[in-house]
C-alpha cells in the first residue's frame, strides 16, 4: 500500500536551535499513527511543518515531505491553502481558543465550505447541520447558531473537528485533541476520531498521553528532544519499550502503581539552569538515564534507596489524634446552581483523601470551603478540632499556618514581583528573621531544588520547578494539612511523577495530611488512602481507594472508570480488582 503522507528526514530549526531532527514516517489511508512526547519534544512543530504552518522564523527542510502527489516544501501558497482546507484537516491543540469568540460556530464551519466549494448558502447550511450531527453534537439547529462561549469544552472540540472534516479530508492531523477535556468527553471525541479513521481517513494523532495514543494508533512514534527515539506497533512499543526514555514515560504513568511506590527513577534534584542542560555529572550514578534528563534540567542523584517502605509502617505513631479535617453536611450554591450538596468527610492525620470528579462536579468548591476561602451555606468544617468555617477570619488566623495549599497553576499563585527566596521566606511563620535565608535554602533543598534558584523569579523556572516552589512555600509554616487542587494536571507525565513522589515523601517524613483534588483517576488512585467520587455537587461513592477502584458500586463511578483511556489492550493494567490491605 502506498503511503498517503510520506515524511523523510524532516528537520525544523528556529535560528540555531534544531527542534525537529531527522523525523521520518509514513501514513497510509485508513491508518492512525500516534506521535507521543512531552512538551518541548517537537511533536507539535512536526505537525505544523506538515501543513506548511511552522511559522516564519522556522526553517523547514526534508529529504521528502510528500502528501499524495504534492511535494509540500515546493508547493505554492495557493496550493498549500487548498491542501489545508480540502485534503488535510487540522484539529488544533487549543480547541477552546481555535474558534472566533464572536462568530456562531455554524458560520465558522461553513467558512471552509464557502472557500473551497461552490455552493449556495442554503446548501452550506444543510451541510453544516449534517456535519454537526455527524460529529455527535446534539440539537445541531440550536448549536450552529451559538457562539463558542455558549458551548461546553466537548462541544467546542466537536465543532472544531466538524470544521476540519467539512470537506472530507483524506488526512486528519489532530494535535492534543482531548487534552483539555474530561475523561468521559474525551472518550466520545476519541470514538469520533476512530470512526473517521475507519471510514478511510488517515490520522496523525499527537498527544503527551500514552493512553490516548495507544487507544487509536496502530503505530506509535516516541519523540524526545526533536528526535524519534522509538517507533513501532503500539502494542509492542507499550508492552516492551526498548528505549529508556519510553520506559521512563510508561513507568511515570501512575495508573498501575499501587500506593507508596515511586513513579520516578530516583529522587531528583533539578539544576537551576533550565536551558541547554548539560547534565551535572554525578559520580555515583553515571546512569543511562542521565542523557534523557537533560531536557527537564533534572539529574538523578545517587545515594538513595528507591525501595521505600510502605507508608503505613513509617507513619502513624500511636497517639490519639483528632482528625485534621471534619467536614459535615457542606452545601454551597451559586445562584440557583447547587455547587456542593451535603458533602461530609473526615481526614485523619497522615492520610490522603482523594476527591475525584469531572469539571463542574464541585470538587474545587470543596477545596475552597476547606481552605475557608468561601463560606458554606450550611454545614461546617472543623480543623484540628477547632471551629473553622464558622469562625471569623481573625479567629482563623492563628490556625492558618497549619493549612497549606498548592494549586494547578503554581505560577499565578506567586507575587510576580518577588523572587523564589522571598516567596518562600514570606511563608515562614516567624517572618523575616535572620535565619530565614538558611531555612529557605533548607526548604528548597527539601523539595529537590537547587538553592541557587532563590534569586530567580518563578516565571523563569520550568513548570515542575514552579510546583516545587509552591510545595516549599506550603510546607514552610510546618502545616498539618495541605489542600492540593489539581497540583500535577498541567505537568508532563515524568515531571508529574517526580512531584507526586515528592509529595509522598514529604507526607511520610512530616506526617502531612493531603486533601487531593484531581480529575485524573490514575493520579487519585496512586496517592489516596480514601476516595470520594463527586458528581454534580454530590458524593456518589466513597471508600478505601482499592475498594472503590476494584469494585465500583455506583454506575457513575463505573462509567467514569470505563471512559478513562488506559495503556494498551493487552496490558490490562487496571482496574485491578485487588483489595488493599
Amino acid at each position: 500500500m502506498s503511503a498517503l503522507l510520506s515524511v523523510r528526514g524532516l528537520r525544523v530549526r528556529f535560528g540555531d536551535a534544531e527542534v525537529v531532527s531527522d523525523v521520518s514516517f509514513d501514513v497510509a489511508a485508513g491508518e492512525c499513527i500516534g506521535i507521543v512526547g512531552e512538551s518541548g519534544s517537537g511533536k507539535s512543530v512536526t505537525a505544523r511543518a506538515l501543513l506548511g504552518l511552522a511559522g516564519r522564523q522556522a526553517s523547514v527542510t526534508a529529504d521528502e515531505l510528500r502528501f499524495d502527489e504534492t511535494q509540500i516544501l515546493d508547493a505554492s501558497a495557493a496550493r498549500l491553502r487548498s491542501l489545508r482546507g480540502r485534503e488535510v484537516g487540522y484539529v488544533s491543540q487549543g480547541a477552546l481558543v481555535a474558534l472566533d469568540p464572536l462568530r456562531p460556530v455554524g458560520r465558522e464551519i461553513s467558512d471552509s465550505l464557502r472557500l473551497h466549494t461552490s455552493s449556495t448558502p442554503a446548501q452550506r447550511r444543510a451541510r453544516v447541520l449534517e456535519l454537526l450531527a455527524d460529529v455527535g453534537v446534539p440539537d445541531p439547529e440550536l448549536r450552529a447558531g451559538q457562539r463558542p462561549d455558549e458551548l461546553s469544552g466537548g462541544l467546542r472540540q466537536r465543532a472544531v473537528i466538524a470544521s476540519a472534516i467539512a470537506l472530507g479530508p483524506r488526512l486528519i492531523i489532530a494535535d492534543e485533541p482531548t487534552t483539555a477535556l474530561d475523561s468521559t468527553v474525551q472518550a466520545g471525541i476519541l470514538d469520533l476520531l476512530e470512526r473517521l479513521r475507519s471510514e478511510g481517513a488517515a490520522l496523525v494523532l499527537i498527544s503527551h498521553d500514552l493512553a490516548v495514543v495507544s487507544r487509536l494508533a496502530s503505530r506509535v512514534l516516541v519523540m524526545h528532544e526533536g528526535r524519534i527515539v522509538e517507533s513501532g506497533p503500539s502494542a509492542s512499543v507499550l508492552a516492551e519499550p526498548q528505549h529508556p526514555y519510553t520506559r521512563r514515560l510508561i513507568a511515570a504513568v501512575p495508573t498501575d502503581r499501587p500506593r507508596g511506590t515511586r513513579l520516578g527513577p530516583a529522587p531528583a534534584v533539578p539544576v537551576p539552569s533550565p536551558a541547554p542542560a548539560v547534565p551535572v555529572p554525578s559520580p555515583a550514578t553515571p546512569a543511562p538515564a542521565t542523557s534523557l534528563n537533560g531536557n527537564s534540567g533534572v539529574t538523578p542523584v545517587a545515594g538513595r534507596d528507591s525501595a521505600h517502605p510502605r507508608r503505613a509502617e513509617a507513619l502513624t505513631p500511636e497517639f490519639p489524634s483528632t482528625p485534621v479535617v471534619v467536614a459535615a453536611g457542606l452545601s454551597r450554591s451559586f445562584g440557583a446552581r447547587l455547587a456542593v450538596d451535603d458533602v461530609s468527610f473526615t481526614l485523619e492525620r497522615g492520610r490522603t483523601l482523594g476527591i475525584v470528579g469531572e469539571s463542574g462536579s464541585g470538587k474545587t468548591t470543596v477545596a475552597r470551603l476547606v481552605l475557608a476561602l468561601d463560606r458554606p451555606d450550611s454545614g461546617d468544617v472543623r480543623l484540628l478540632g477547632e471551629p473553622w468555617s464558622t469562625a471569623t477570619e481573625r479567629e482563623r488566623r492563628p490556625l492558618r499556618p497549619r493549612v497549606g495549599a498548592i494549586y494547578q497553576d503554581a505560577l499565578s499563585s506567586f507575587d510576580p514581583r518577588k523572587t523564589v527566596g522571598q516567596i518562600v521566606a514570606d511563608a515562614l511563620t516567624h517572618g523575616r528573621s535572620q535565619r530565614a535565608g538558611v531555612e529557605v535554602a533548607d526548604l528548597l533543598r527539601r523539595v529537590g531544588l537547587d538553592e541557587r534558584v532563590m534569586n530567580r523569579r518563578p516565571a523563569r523556572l520550568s513548570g515542575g520547578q514552579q510546583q516545587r516552589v509552591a510545595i516549599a512555600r506550603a510546607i514552610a509554616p510546618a502545616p498539618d494539612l495541605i489542600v492540593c487542587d489539581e497540583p500535577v494536571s498541567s505537568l508532563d507525565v515524568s515531571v508529574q511523577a517526580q512531584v507526586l513522589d515528592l509529595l509522598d515523601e514529604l507526607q511520610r517524613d512530616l506526617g502531612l495530611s493531603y486533601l487531593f483534588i484531581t480529575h485524573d483517576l490514575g493520579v487519585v488512585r496512586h496517592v489516596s488512602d480514601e476516595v470520594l467520587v463527586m458528581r454534580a455537587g454530590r458524593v456518589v461513592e466513597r471508600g478505601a481507594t482499592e475498594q472503590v477502584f476494584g469494585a465500583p458500586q455506583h454506575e457513575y463511578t463505573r462509567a467514569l472508570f470505563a471512559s478513562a483511556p488506559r495503556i494498551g489492550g493487552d496490558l490490562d493494567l487496571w482496574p485491578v480488582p485487588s483489595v488493599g490491605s
Partner: protein
Amino acid sequence: METAALVVIAFLALAALAPSVLAPGDPLAIAPLDSFQPPSLAHVFGTDESGRDIYTRVIHGTGASLLIGIAATAIGLGLALVFGLLAGFGPRWLDFGTTRFLEVLFAFPGLLFALLFIVVYGPGVVTSTIAVGLSTAPGYARIIRSRVIQVRTSPYLEAALVLGRGRPSRIVRHVLPNVAGSLFVLATLGIGQSIVWASSLSYLGLGAVPPAAEWGAMLSAGRTYIASFWWMTFFPGLFIVLSAAATTLLGRGIQQRGRES
C-alpha cells in the same frame, strides 16, 4: 529610541535645573533694535517682537513647563490613587459611589473641565497646574481601580490569605507594590500629556502670563506673527513636542521592559 529619549530628558533636566549654564543671558532682557531677527549665530533661535533671545527664553522656560507637567501629573495621580484605592478596596457601595462620581467627571472633556476650574479660581501657573491635574485624575483613577481589583482577586493574594496574612499586610506587601509598578509607567506617560495641556492653557492666556518665559505663552505671543516670523512659534513648539515625545517614549520603554520580565 530610548537612548535618544534619555538624552533629550537629560538635556531638559539640565535646562530646568541650571538654565544659566546653557543660556547665560537674561530671558526678559529686551533689545528693541534687535526685534524679529531670524535665527543666526548671535541668536540661534532668532528674537521676538521685543528683541528678546528666543533660545534663552526657551531654555529658561523649561523649568516652568516641566514643573507644571510634573506637578500636574503628581496631583492627578495623587487624587487618582485615593479614589482608586477607595474604590478598589472599599465596600461595594463606596466602589459604586466613587465610580459613578468619576464617570460624571469623565463626561466633561478634560480641557473643558480645566477651563471651568480656571474660570472659577482665576488664571495663573498654580491654578492651571491644579486644573490640569484635576482633569487627568479620573482617567488614572479608573486604571488604578481596575489594577487594584485585578491584584486583589489574584491567586497570589489568595495564597497570602491561606498563609494567614492579615488584610493590612496583604495590602502593603502585595497590592501596593504591584499597583505601584504600573503607576510609575502611567506617571512617565502622563508627564508628556500634562506638559502639552499646561502649554495649551498658557496659549489660551489662562496659565503663565506674558512676559514670563513659558512655552505655551511664547507660542501664544508668536501666533500674531506666524506668517512672517516662523521661528517665534517653531522653537517653543519644538520643545513642547520634544519633551512630550521623550517622556512618552521613556514610559513606553519602561512598560515594555516590565512586560518582558
